[in-house]
């Protein structure tokens, strides 16, 4: 008989090993799925995990793409993870990402066609401000009226999407666009364009900011008093209150920070890879970042790796659907399996598994 024994504290060893096991389990279960679809499972797995990095035809193009895809995921996930650690659940990063993009792009477009070098930094600040403002709504409602920030932040995503559709067709619409929705393309607006810093590397300012955020979060959590308060609030809320943590200030800080980072990610994306404000600009990064945050164990370095891994499954998944004709839905299923196995494996972190001989009656 198998018995689960609760560990007094989560195992650090298993917390580090389970993501690797989850990836392996995903490969096996996904391989079975591909096999059932009539595709060679080994080729499919190789196409997803190996070819984007090392294929002679695609590698040179898809390696930099890894950074492009991972950048916003990491930047958003870092912000979310700090809140999650404190037990503050911002589920609406997608909305903050969209609003950040709208506000930041709006500032840039208002000055079109300036050539000032100051415009891009100003847009970054505006983007962060937009995301921060959007996150302040659930934060304020929670602090003032005790509403649930999960629901409020999630619902605000749909409001943000409606605003995105509205500005794409109205306020920010390209005046030279013959009435079609969508703003001017930032690729044709050099001062405001978030291009590659070194051509062919995929490295744009959003990726740089993501790396800075990783370092910043690491220092905050391990070296700073505020980081200690964050961790304490999540792990022992009562003890935190006794030790003088003000819950309201922590809520404002965590939601504000994650909102600002998500808003910045939106700005970097809209001025860089996406190029324009359009109705379907919101591509789900804000939600995927939640998966990345947990896949990375809410740990800054873990999130860095998890973001790159997630990006790899996206790019590899695209490649697999192109090269092998695997349906897009199967690729999404494959990515879903990753989160499923990760959460399922949490049992090893929190429980000790013992084999017990059935006692004689």
């Amino acid at each position, binding site marked *: 008989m198998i018995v689960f024994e609760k560990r007094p504290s989560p195992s650090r060893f298993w917390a580090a090993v389970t993501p690797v096991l989850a990836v392996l389990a995903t490969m096996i279960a996904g391989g079975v799925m591909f096999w059932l679809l009539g595709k060679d499972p080994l080729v499919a797995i190789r196409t997803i995990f190996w070819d984007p990095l090392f294929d002679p*035809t*695609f590698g040179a*193009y*898809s390696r930099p*793409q890894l950074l*492009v895809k991972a950048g916003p995921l990491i930047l958003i996930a870092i912000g979310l993870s700090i809140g999650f650690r404190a037990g503050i659940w911002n589920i609406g990063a997608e909305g903050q990402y969209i609003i950040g993009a709208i506000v930041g792009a709006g500032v840039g477009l208002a000055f079109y066609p300036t050539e000032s070098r100051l415009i891009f930094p100003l847009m970054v600040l505006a983007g962060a401000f937009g995301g921060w403002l959007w996150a302040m709504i659930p934060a304020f409602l929670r602090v003032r009226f005790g509403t649930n920030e999960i629901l409020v932040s999630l619902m605000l995503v749909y409001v943000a999407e409606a605003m995105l*559709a*509205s500005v794409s*067709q*109205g306020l920010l*619409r390209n005046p030279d666009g*013959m*009435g*079609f*929705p969508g703003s001017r*393309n930032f*690729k044709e607006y050099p001062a405001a364009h978030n291009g590659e810093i070194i051509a062919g590397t995929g490295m744009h300012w959003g990726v740089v900011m993501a790396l800075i955020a990783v370092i910043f979060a690491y220092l905050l959590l391990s070296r700073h008093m505020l980081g200690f308060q964050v961790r304490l609030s999540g792990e022992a809320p009562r003890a935190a209150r006794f030790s003088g943590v003000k819950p309201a200030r922590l809520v404002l800080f965590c939601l504000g920070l994650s909102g600002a980072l998500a808003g910045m990610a939106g700005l970097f*994306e809209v001025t860089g*890879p*996406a*190029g*324009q404000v*359009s*109705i*379907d*600009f919101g*591509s789900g990064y804000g939600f995927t970042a939640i998966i990345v945050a947990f896949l990375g164990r809410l740990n800054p370095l873990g999130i860095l790796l998890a973001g790159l891994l997630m990006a790899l499954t996206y*790019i590899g998944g*695209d*490649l697999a*659907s*192109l*090269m092998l*004709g695997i*349906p*897009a*839905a199967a690729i999404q299923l494959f990515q879903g399996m990753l989160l499923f196995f990760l959460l399922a494996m949490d049992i090893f972190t929190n429980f000790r598994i013992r084999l017990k001989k059935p006692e004689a009656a």
Partner: protein
Amino acid sequence: MKRRTILKGAGALALGSTLGSRVLAAGPTKVGFIYVGPIGDGGWTYQHDQGRLAVEAEFGDAVETVYQESVPEGADAVRAMTQMALQGAELIFATSFGYMDQVLEVAAKFPNVKFEHATGYKTADNVGVYSARFYEGRAVQGTIAGRMTRSNVIGYIASFPIPEVIRGINSAFIHARKVNPDVQFKVIWAYTWFDPAKEADAAKALIEQGADVILQHTDSTAPQAAAQEAGNVITFGQASDMAEYAPLPRVSSIIDNWAPYYVARTRAVMDGTWQSDNTWDGIGKGMVGIGEISSAVPAEVKAEAEALRDAIAAGSYHPFTGPLRKQDGSDWLAEGEVADDGTLAGMGFYVEGLEGDVPS
């Protein structure tokens, strides 16, 4: 038919002699397709994929087609097209309006690859655009809808307020009013091309508001199913025939027939005669098809609709013929005047009689 046999003969000859196959050393011509939805959507993307299959059927081993479905409109489309070009595709069809800037971006990096962008308007040396005059089909739909409605309320599930969609609403409305002066249109903007749940909700909301005809500019069959469930509501297939819902609720359809165009453009690439162009074909050239008008439609209405279809095909009637006014009452087209393509391509206004505003 003849051309196909000649081509097959040539293919066999080439295979028969090693010299021949060496001449064709480049191997089959690779043609890529980028789809915005899943190929099983039963509508827009399904029809584009039928076009792809027609290319395969036409050229056999001389072509190899690849496709990627459900590609979001944005940065992901750049990657999808770049990977196709790297893989050796010589011709890429990007089959949604939202890929426009991405097509131009990738096309600039691969000057030797030809791109065809559906429903767009920006061209380059290696980027051509093509679309169909769906509004011609909408005129036929509007005629049937105006004749068939008993509540005089016609529901319209619109996708995005872009000229193509607004054109369709206007065309259907003009022709419904022509045969039934009491008809009203209720328009719901779904802000999606394909979302069965949203489309079903929109259809139900319209039916609750008294609509007994549902027109749709979205791609799934969900509105058909919702109408079937409600009963006494008629619909029209969108993009593909959706014949599985005939004879009721689906009484007819607009069918996008991309196959002849895709075959012609692929042949042009193989011949080396491909040139960037701007194609906008309608019922006459067969790019827009009117699906079988079902037995639920009275014979005289069917005859009237078919006469309109034939007049449009023959070029003797244009769906936007004056006198027509804009919604605000200002004059647009004088008696007998026909709308020019430029105005139609950028159409952002409703015609007189439509209620509500074009969202902005």
